[in-house]
């Protein structure tokens, strides 16, 4: 099997080398770039499978790189994970809206980073036309509009169903409340963002009360403080 190629775009050499070491240990092949221009050249020449992009590159050039990627059809589909500093709450939202697929905050756990990379690679490899989603004992079947936990159908409202479908199709990715509204309720409706919280609560309850499963799937709907929500089976870190 070919190793997946990851392009690490980060101007601090010490961080770049640390990421490279960790990713190589995990079986990835790594490319490195110290600035956006070099990154663009490598993207075109070496066709990486995924880009890790430091948000704090000088002169907002990280954001410009993503915009440039999106305009170029040959590299527009390469998934991007942003590396951000935690103090930049607004930048996170800005980044996700501008086309990054996920983000991790510094200092990040390399295990979590690797899990996110794998999830994102899986997601971009599988077709988006899936009609059935499964995570461990949790299964969503789009044909029958039913959700099963350990093969037993559970009670779930129509909005909660759509919400879960959206999350399961975008595992491990954080969304702001307004992104969730746009994707689940549709872009042109005016609904207060806090409505999302109400339905998240109902969804967690539906997943929690269901059956005799040893796993509480409500736990997988995770609050991302200051941002929104994410669906993930990764261990919650406080």
């Amino acid at each position, binding site marked *: 099997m070919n190793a997946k190629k990851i392009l690490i775009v980060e101007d601090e050499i010490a961080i770049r080398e640390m990421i490279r070491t960790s990713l190589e240990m995990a079986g990835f092949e790594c490319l490195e770039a110290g600035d956006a221009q070099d990154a663009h050249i490598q993207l075109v020449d070496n066709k990486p499978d995924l880009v890790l992009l430091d948000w704090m590159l000088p002169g907002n050039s990280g954001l410009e790189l993503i915009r440039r990627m999106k305009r170029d059809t040959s590299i527009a589909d390469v998934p991007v994970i942003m590396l951000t500093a935690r103090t930049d709450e607004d930048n996170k939202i800005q980044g996700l809206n501008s086309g990054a697929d996920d983000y991790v905050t510094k200092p990040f756990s390399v295990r979590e980073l690797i899990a996110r990379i794998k999830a994102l690679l899986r997601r971009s490899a599988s077709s988006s036309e899936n009609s059935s989603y499964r995570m461990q004992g949790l299964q969503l079947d789009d044909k029958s509009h039913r959700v099963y936990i350990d093969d037993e159908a559970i009670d779930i409202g129509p909005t909660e169903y759509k919400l879960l479908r959206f999350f399961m199709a975008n595992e491990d990715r954080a969304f702001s409340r307004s992104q969730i509204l746009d994707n689940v309720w549709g872009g042109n409706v005016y609904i207060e963002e*806090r409505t999302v919280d109400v339905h998240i609560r109902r969804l967690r309850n539906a997943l929690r009360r269901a059956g005799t499963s040893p796993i509480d799937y409500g736990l997988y709907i995770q609050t991302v403080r200051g941002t929104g929500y994410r669906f993930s089976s990764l261990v919650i870190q406080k």
Partner: protein
Amino acid sequence: MTDNTRLVHELSRELRAPLTVISGYLETLYDTHEEWQAPFDRMIKQSNRIDRLLNDLVYLTRLEEAENEAAQVAKVDIAAVIQMVTDEQRLYHPNKTFSYASSTQSDIQGNGDQLYTAFTKLLENAGENTAPDGCIEVLWHEVNGTRVLCIKDNGVGIEPQHLPRITDRFYRTDLNSDGVGLGLCIVKSILEHHSACLRISSEFGKGTAIECVFKLE
């Protein structure tokens, strides 16, 4: 931004880069050196603590800064915020009992995100300081012309000598805990933004009751 705030923000940004490098290598070493797992694990935990400390410190200076500006105020359904925080803590502590009751009007003028953070910190404390099968009662009610959020647990309690200083910056009742000593300081600051106050009563060995007292609008 005051000089003080700017210093804290810059310092935390500058510390995060080396911290990222250190904790990143530590995790890889942990995964590859079985005989050293315990010490590496301790080092990872300590570097996580530095990270939490930086987060709390930045958050706190931001709050203090906001005191001088017009903070973002809107109508907040406080009962819904409490409900959400309680639900989330229940997920982290499936074997503990969290009860929640609300018996008064729930809209207040305030900052929903800040209140969410404050209540989360209080309930996290309650969750962490109770036995594995502990009970936490959460109540939003009206008392003598005020509206009060009361969080009562049957946990370890706080020794009386700590109570006067417990909301001080970096004050820790247990030096061996993972805490960084800024949680209650943040809670207090957020409540002050809402013209509310924090009351703590506790009996060592029996439990703690924390009240957030809001004026009736």
